[in-house]
């Protein structure tokens, strides 16, 4: 990454590590570097324990500070997130960056109406009257296409259906017009026909508002629907990045290939699946060799003795696997 381009980036994470202290330390994120240009969507794909949600929370400094060690640098919209003071952080959250979750009940307060909550979020960041804020809240509900928004403004979260709550949470996240929206599996708990509605809504809002979005999911199909670029995480590291097209049509890392096969899209009926054996490693130690090697059928001695190189195959196309070296050789 050259310094000139850094300034135009919306997000630049450089070699970020996250360690949770406890009876046993957990090295949840181990050297993650990623960038996001303004107005683009990055999908982070990974399974439970891959560090994808922790990476996302690091961007908002949502991790419990007393027992978390964070290393590396996190720059969002020109601000050094890890160095923000309490007041700056409060201003940064919601204003520059906001987040939506899998469970809207985490983000919505059950004792206030939807309108009150959105208006409160607006007033916190802008000097406008309560009444004007309510008007903006109504516009936001229209923006996320909640049916009969005037009525919903006065509704409590529990009075809404699952899909509607998800829309209300998105409206709340957009209240202060953030430049970056973080989405942590926002459609995982939804039914199929509702999930696609929310995905299409997010895609449209992102385009209309020109937001940058980082979308974390375990579902490849969902990631493909919303993302421009993808990053695949395993054991706290990004093992492969590229455009959606590159990753889907030409996956390089054995883990990415395994995930694609496990999605069963176009799998041959009755044939055994080429499943990845075993389970992800416990992250009590920082990795000193390829974390995927114990499950990889291509693993060689060098995979088990040292960290795999980050091989750059093209602009923003990086694979952490020794096997990708072959791809570099002139064809």
């Amino acid at each position, binding site marked *: 990454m050259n310094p000139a381009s850094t300034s135009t980036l919306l997000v630049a994470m450089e070699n970020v590590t996250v360690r949770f202290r406890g009876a046993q330390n957990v090295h949840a994120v181990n050297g993650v570097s990623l960038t996001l240009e303004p107005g683009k969507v990055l999908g982070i794909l990974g399974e439970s324990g891959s560090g994808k949600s922790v990476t996302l929370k690091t961007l908002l400094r949502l991790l419990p500070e007393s027992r978390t060690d964070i290393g590396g640098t996190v720059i969002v919209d020109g601000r050094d997130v890890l160095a923000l003071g309490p007041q700056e952080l409060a201003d940064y959250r919601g204003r520059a960056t906001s987040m939506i979750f899998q469970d809207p009940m985490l983000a919505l307060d059950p004792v206030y109406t939807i309108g009150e909550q959105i208006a409160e979020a607006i007033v916190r960041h802008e000097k406008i009257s309560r009444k004007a804020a309510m008007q903006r809240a109504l516009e936001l509900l229209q923006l996320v296409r909640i049916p009969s928004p005037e009525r919903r403004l006065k509704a409590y979260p529990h009075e809404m259906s699952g899909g509607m709550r998800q829309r209300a949470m998105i409206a709340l996240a957009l209240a202060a017009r953030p430049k970056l929206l973080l989405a942590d599996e926002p459609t995982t708990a939804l039914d*199929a026909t509702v999930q696609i509605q929310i995905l299409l809504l997010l895609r449209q809002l992102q385009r209309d508002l020109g937001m940058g979005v980082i979308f974390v999911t375990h579902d490849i199909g969902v990631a493909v629907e919303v993302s421009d670029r993808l990053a695949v995480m395993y054991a706290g590291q990004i093992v492969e990045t590229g455009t959606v097209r590159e990753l889907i049509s030409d996956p390089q890392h054995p883990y990415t290939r395994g995930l694609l096969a496990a999605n069963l899209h176009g799998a041959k009926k009755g044939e055994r699946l080429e499943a990845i054996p075993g389970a992800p490693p416990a992250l009590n130690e920082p990795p000193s060799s390829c974390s995927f090697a114990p499950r990889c059928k291509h693993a060689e001695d060098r995979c088990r003795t040292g960290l795999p190189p980050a091989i750059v195959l093209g602009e923003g196309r990086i694979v952490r696997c020794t096997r990708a070296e072959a791809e570099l050789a002139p064809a």
Partner: protein
Amino acid sequence: MSLEISTEERDRGGAGTPLLEARTLTKHFPLGRGAVVRAVDGVDFQVLKGETLGVVGESGCGKSTTARVVMQLILQDKGEMLFDGEAVGSAALSLKEYRRQAQMVFQDSYASLNPRLTIEDSIAFGPTVHGVPKSGAILRARDLLARVGLDPARFAARYPHELSGGQRQRVNIARALALGPRLVILDEAVSALDKSVEAQVLNLLMDLREEFGLTYIFISHDLNVVRFISDRVMVMYLGEVVEIGPVDELYDDPRHPYTRALLSAMPSMDPDNRTMEAPLAGDPPNPINPPEGCRFHPRCPQAQTVCAKVKPVLTRTGAGARLAACHMEIAGSGHSRALGLEDAA
């Protein structure tokens, strides 16, 4: 061991008889003040011997209640079930005997194992209930552990919380197989697992199906998984079956508008052909006091007056053994897209 009976010996009705036949299964839950949850409302289906019947549908469609009624954990208000030609609960097939032949695997691998019992004790529990001596049941449990890919020497005496989700689900599968069942109901059994682990468990389920000659009812919200593992698929909406038929035929040429919507709501895997329009608006309604006529008509893009008035029955459609409950498929139903009676003849 007394439970070791070959499939052939137990096959009473012959290959032509369905293993399970559900006739107008109905289960309503009264909520008080006249409100009734019509969780399962007159469901008919057959499960053929050796096949896997996939069941799909969204929340509130009644697929899990159907599973519990089939397992007789909840008793139906109306309707009956025939297992290999014999009525379940009759003199010929008592409930206890039926439960030896039909077993279930639940979604939550942790909640379905008693935290105070070791793995082998959990698996051995069923056989001891049916009179197998404890020592024999334990040996059988270790044998089954080996078959589901868990080394008995390492896992038999462990407790559930010491295992990963995938390992626990293997234990639950072993537990379901301990009684030597012919029918296994898998209620979202792989849904909570990570994708890479899910593939392992699906492989295991396919191996076991072949090895033990099992018949599966596979309930899932994941349409990719259902397509992969099922021979036939049943689509449910608000407590009713809307379409049922061979998997490829149903996926390639869905006849019910709801099936079509469900299939087109699947995320596209092609970045150049993303989904451009959501097939349905709003959330699936809940099954309290569902609409008259066709239950899908308020959300159906092709609904006409007849749909609001007359309930469509499951009707043979398409090339083969497919049934759909839609007025567009019923000759002479009064829907403008339906064939006239004379055309059908």
